[in-house]
């Protein structure tokens, strides 16, 4: 395989300007993540201490094997929702190593609103369990949830992907033979009561852990019965009498030790075979990514410069280098694993779509996972392109992306707009993981274009009525649209809504992908099979 010869001039002014800008973005990301993880009012920490509970981060540190990586997902979920008062959507989710096994950890964070489930908390838990199902990863639940946040119940209770889906996904995991272990570290009430009950193994912490469908106040209201939490659903009752729980632990650390011992009994899964050689670091430093990602999202750059800083030895076997050049396709290795990369070098045309669809089928037959590097403003529009069948060729690419059986991974590197988002394996196309870079923007249309279109429509309506808009009036329509668009197309908004699995500092992308790729190989890969391609 040829090494990519980088032509980036690290001493140029543009490179330095980008570098400075992107380092700032990375620092801002780190700060926001740190705050979401650790920044809590002192009274919340005090309450935990009073309740004899550890902070969720301490629980996590004790659960995971020391000195192993933890890929935390959706750290900034809900950062733009609920007035920013529910950091990480009150949930910690990630892929980590427990007793030598890759697992998904899902932990309620009782330092935030006593761990209450908000609509985005439910979305985050459902997503965590979807990841477990797709990648056949065992799950460790650290349960400490006060119940659903009732004022917003209409947004998390009844629909298909609402809270019921958590219990459904748990049951499906069990049916697939993927085990779960739950530790009850606080009250598990109502739907939350079923989380430990539906886990193959569960452990209750004596004194603080309790499971009941209705807590003491609910029982009092319903039947008038006075009963203590311990008596109603405490650890001793459930392990000695009801059989709802399996093990009683005398402390949280004891419970974690039992959980680690339970996970150590899980079968070590045989990973799906894909081609692999000894890993090798890229020939160019990942730090140079900061200088390559443009400060101005509209500025074009060569995706090969990104690939050169992600893949083993910066080596890239480019497929059809002279055809459909706005989509770069080719093979590379990531930590030794062969991957097929599709990366945008401009807008999608008919030829680039055909090339992409063909390349996906090659990789699928070859059992080669796919990596999509998005910087796409959409498919080319215009009379000539429609006549040449841009829509039907785009449909082929979408058909191939949807049908591919090999694991797909998507990085939103810069722009992600229009049908380009879809054709490049957007969230709706079930890539195993989607990560964004902090500079990235995602929306149906670019902000400028959308503002232009909407202002144009308004002006036309007025023109029909014989009116005309002044420049000032046009600007008054444009500005709020632009502002709203910028806000809701930012990486932070996307990750707040859990449209991705988290924002990555670009330099961490290679490591995150390695963990994701390794996790994905716990599931078998189906034989290639596709729908009907419109030829």
């Amino acid at each position: 395989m040829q090494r990519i010869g980088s032509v980036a001039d690290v001493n140029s002014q543009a490179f330095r300007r980008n570098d400075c800008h992107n380092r700032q973005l990375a620092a801002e990301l780190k700060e926001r993540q740190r705050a979401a993880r650790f920044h809590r009012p002192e009274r919340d920490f005090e309450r935990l201490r009073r309740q004899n509970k550890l902070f969720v981060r301490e629980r996590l540190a004790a659960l995971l094997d020391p000195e192993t990586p933890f890929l935390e997902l959706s750290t900034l979920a809900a950062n733009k929702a609920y007035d920013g008062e529910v950091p990480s959507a009150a949930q910690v989710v990630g892929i980590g190593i427990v007793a030598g096994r890759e697992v998904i950890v899902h932990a309620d964070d009782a330092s935030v609103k006593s761990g209450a489930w908000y609509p985005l908390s439910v979305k985050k838990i459902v997503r965590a369990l979807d990841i477990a199902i797709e990648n056949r990863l065992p799950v460790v639940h650290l349960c400490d949830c006060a119940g659903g946040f009732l004022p917003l119940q209409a947004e998390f209770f009844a629909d298909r992907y609402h809270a019921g889906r958590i219990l459904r996904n748990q049951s499906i995991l069990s049916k697939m033979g993927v085990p779960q272990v739950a530790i009850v570290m606080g009250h598990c009430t109502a739907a939350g009561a079923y989380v430990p009950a539906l886990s193959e193994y569960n452990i209750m912490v004596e004194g603080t852990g309790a499971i009941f469908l209705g807590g003491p106040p609910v029982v009092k209201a319903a039947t008038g019965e006075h009963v203590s939490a311990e008596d109603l659903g405490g650890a001793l009752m459930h392990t000695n009498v009801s059989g709802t729980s399996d093990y009683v632990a005398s402390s949280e650390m004891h419970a974690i030790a039992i959980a680690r011992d339970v996970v150590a009994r899980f079968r070590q899964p045989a990973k799906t075979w894909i081609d692999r050689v000894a890993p090798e670091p890229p020939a160019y430093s990942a730090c140079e990514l900061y200088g390559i990602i443009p400060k101005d999202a509209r500025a074009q750059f060569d995706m090969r410069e990104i690939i050169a800083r992600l893949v083993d030895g910066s080596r890239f076997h480019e497929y059809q280098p002279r055809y459909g050049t706005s989509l770069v396709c080719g093979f590379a290795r990531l930590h030794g694993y062969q991957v097929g990369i599709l990366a945008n070098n401009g807008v999608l045309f008919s030829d680039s779509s055909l090339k992409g669809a063909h390349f996906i089928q090659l990789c699928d037959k070859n059992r080669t996972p796919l990596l999509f590097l998005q910087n796409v403003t959409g498919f080319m529009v215009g009379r000539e392109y429609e006549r040449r069948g841009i829509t039907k060729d785009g449909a082929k690419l979408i058909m191939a992306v949807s049908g591919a059986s090999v694991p797909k991974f998507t990085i939103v590197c810069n722009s992600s707009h229009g049908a380009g988002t879809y054709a490049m394996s957007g969230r709706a196309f079930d890539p195993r993981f989607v990560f964004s870079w902090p500079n990235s923007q995602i929306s149906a249309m670019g902000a400028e274009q959308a503002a232009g279109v909407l202002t144009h429509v308004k002006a036309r309506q007025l023109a029909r009525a014989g009116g005309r808009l002044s420049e000032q009036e046009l600007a008054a329509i444009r500005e709020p649209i632009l502002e709203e668009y910028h806000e809701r197309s930012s990486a932070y908004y996307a990750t707040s809504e859990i449209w991705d699995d988290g924002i990555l500092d670009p330099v961490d992308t290679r490591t995150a992908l390695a963990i994701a790729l390794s996790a994905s190989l716990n599931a078998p890969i189906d034989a290639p099979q596709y729908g009907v391609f419109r030829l």
Partner: protein
Amino acid sequence: MYHSFEVDRVDHRLWLSTSQQGYRLHLRDQVIAPVAFTHHGESSGILTIAGESEPVRFAIDGDLIHLHIRGRSRIVRYNDPLRALTSANDETRLLIARAPMPGVVVATTVSPGQSVSAGMALMMIESMKLQTIIRSPQDGIVDRIHVKEGESFEHDAELVTLSEEGR
């Protein structure tokens, strides 16, 4: 969760992690690498720590490891977290021996004031054509025997209460 080993009554928390160059030993804030061990037979081998190799002989007896290294013998105890983290309040509940099923006392083998150790027979009961020995749940002194020979009792009834030694 780090492993915990005790040497001369001092607790050491440590972890072995893998790297491309073999194992790394994490001991408190220190990282020692590479760490390797080659077996020479059942109970001896060569231990390599940060490039220095030493022959060691060892015998493993449950959680105890008897080590002979650099001309000295040491005893290392593995503190199993499952045992080490069980708190004392579990044990207070173990001061009572309860009936595993309804039945009749056939014979009592201890008397009040007698000191007993964990697992020692306290009484024999009969139930459903089975004779079962009730054993002491922990070390202690027999405080009270609740049911006399020949008398019957219900499931989960208290049979013998112990008190803790020296308290």
